[in-house]
């Protein structure tokens, strides 16, 4: 049984230990979906179920204080919401708030800071005395240290340098295999790092069956406003210039198709 399920928008589910990505262009409704999944907003269609139950259903009024603590959201501008005196206290705030014992808090904070690539040297620093990317890493460490049952990440790689972006799964190491993670992104390249992918278009979700298959439907993605890998961008540009290319294929297949089509059109 999935741990978290959205029954509206054509549906989404995620199981323990699983990472699913939601791929959508800006303006496709990612942030709204993230709020719904984290019980911060009542869905306009369907409901969100945690372990098969809608925790908001019994309540007559929507109250932030009554939302389940098992689900944690990293908001889009999370680096602006750091507030504690030190980086350590900021990352420790979540687990302390949950009543975690102090030695366990310490273990989690250290593990989380390590996972996001911040040395222990920053522990005593003020979170305001950091670069943009470093603040984003602290914010991320804060949600990791909570060890939530479900973690929802809204565009978590903004402000990270390219290497961190490519290795983002390593940042999630403390939760891997335990928490269910929903990762909302506008990058096809990032989305393919997840176990499963949903495409979000005009607020509606569509599962993309296999990772490879995501890239097979490149026209659909481009129309949804998603940045394609370079080979598909080139395929689109050549298609517009009249070169005959297959409608789908993996990046490698498409690269080969471009070479073949070009050679054919220049033969003789």
């Amino acid at each position, binding site marked *: 049984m999935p741990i978290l399920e959205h029954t509206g928008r054509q549906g989404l589910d995620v199981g323990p230990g699983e990472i699913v990505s939601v791929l959508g262009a800006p303006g496709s409704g990612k942030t709204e979906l993230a709020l719904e999944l984290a019980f911060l907003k009542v869905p306009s269609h369907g409901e969100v179920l945690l372990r098969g139950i809608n925790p908001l259903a019994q309540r007559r009024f929507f109250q932030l204080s009554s939302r389940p603590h098992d689900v944690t959201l990293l908001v*889009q501008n999370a680096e*602006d919401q750091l507030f504690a005196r030190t980086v350590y206290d900021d990352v420790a705030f979540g687990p302390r708030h949950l009543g975690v014992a102090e030695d366990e808090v310490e273990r989690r904070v250290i593990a989380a800071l390590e996972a996001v690539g911040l040395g222990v040297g920053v522990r005593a620093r003020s979170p305001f005395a950091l*670069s*943009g990317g470093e603040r984003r890493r602290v914010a991320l460490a804060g949600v990791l240290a909570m060890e939530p049952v479900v973690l929802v990440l809204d565009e978590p790689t903004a402000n990270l340098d*390219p290497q961190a972006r490519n290795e983002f799964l390593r940042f999630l190491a403390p939760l891997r295999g335990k928490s269910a993670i929903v990762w909302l992104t506008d990058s096809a390249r990032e989305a393919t790092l997840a176990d499963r992918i949903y495409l979000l278009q005009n607020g509606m979700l569509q599962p993309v069956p296999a990772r490879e298959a995501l890239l097979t439907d490149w026209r659909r993605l481009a129309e949804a406003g998603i940045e394609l890998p370079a*080979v598909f961008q*080139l395929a689109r540009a050549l298609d517009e210039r009249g070169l005959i290319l297959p409608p789908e294929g993996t990046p490698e297949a498409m690269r080969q198709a471009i*070479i073949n089509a070009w050679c054919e059109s220049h033969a003789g």
Partner: protein
Amino acid sequence: MIAIEDATYRYGPGDEPAVRDVSVSVAPGEMVGIVGPNGSGKSTLSRLMKGLIVPEAGRVTVDGRDTRDDALGVRRLVGLVFQNPDSQIVNSVVEDEVAFGPENLGLPASEIRRRVDQALDTVGLRGRERAESHAQSMADKQRIALAAVLAMEPRYLILDEPTAWMEPAKRTHLLERIREWQQETGGGLVVVTHRMDEARACDRLYGMLHGRVDVEGFPDRVLGDAEVRRRLALDVPEAYALAESLRAAGLPVQPGQSVDVLAEELCPS
């Protein structure tokens, strides 16, 4: 010209320098890119150039004005758009936000109107004058912040990861509009970015590492060097790798081009 000469800066007395012995120049009409890992000193350079902070050693001048002696003069010449749009917007109506700076300069109403219209035009927000600025998406807040800076008609424009929240097509389009702004005004442009395609579009790049200028040169040289990329935590622009593989297969493409140029080389229109 903006000139940072052998500058060292630390945020607190006991801190490691955030930048040390850095020299950077930006000429009018030039688009200079700054790349490098998180925490390498890129935003610190932006703040030095804008005169928000002054170096403890070395100096920073903008068209001959030293930021130590004439911080106000420098701040008029240099516009800076930060990473984070939320912290930059103070007015709740879009056009008020954009008019705010020119109004403080005491400009006549007609001139303010002209500048606001033009700035909103450049960033693609014409028609949204009366919108509520804090209710906009991150991407649109970034445009508002940019328009507010453009309305000050700076001689130099520094964009510190200005497009982080924008979708690719809009990002490219906005940078093109800023390039046009630059060509019309002859201004200097500095772009701090983690996006290799933006870096590639610059005239010249500085690669920062641990507070020092690690490498400086044409984008092709900097980004084309695998050792530099590894050291600075950079990506290969995807189009580079693609061009190389097509070239290896015998197709007539030059290395180091954008996808659009590749398409033109393969199928001239």
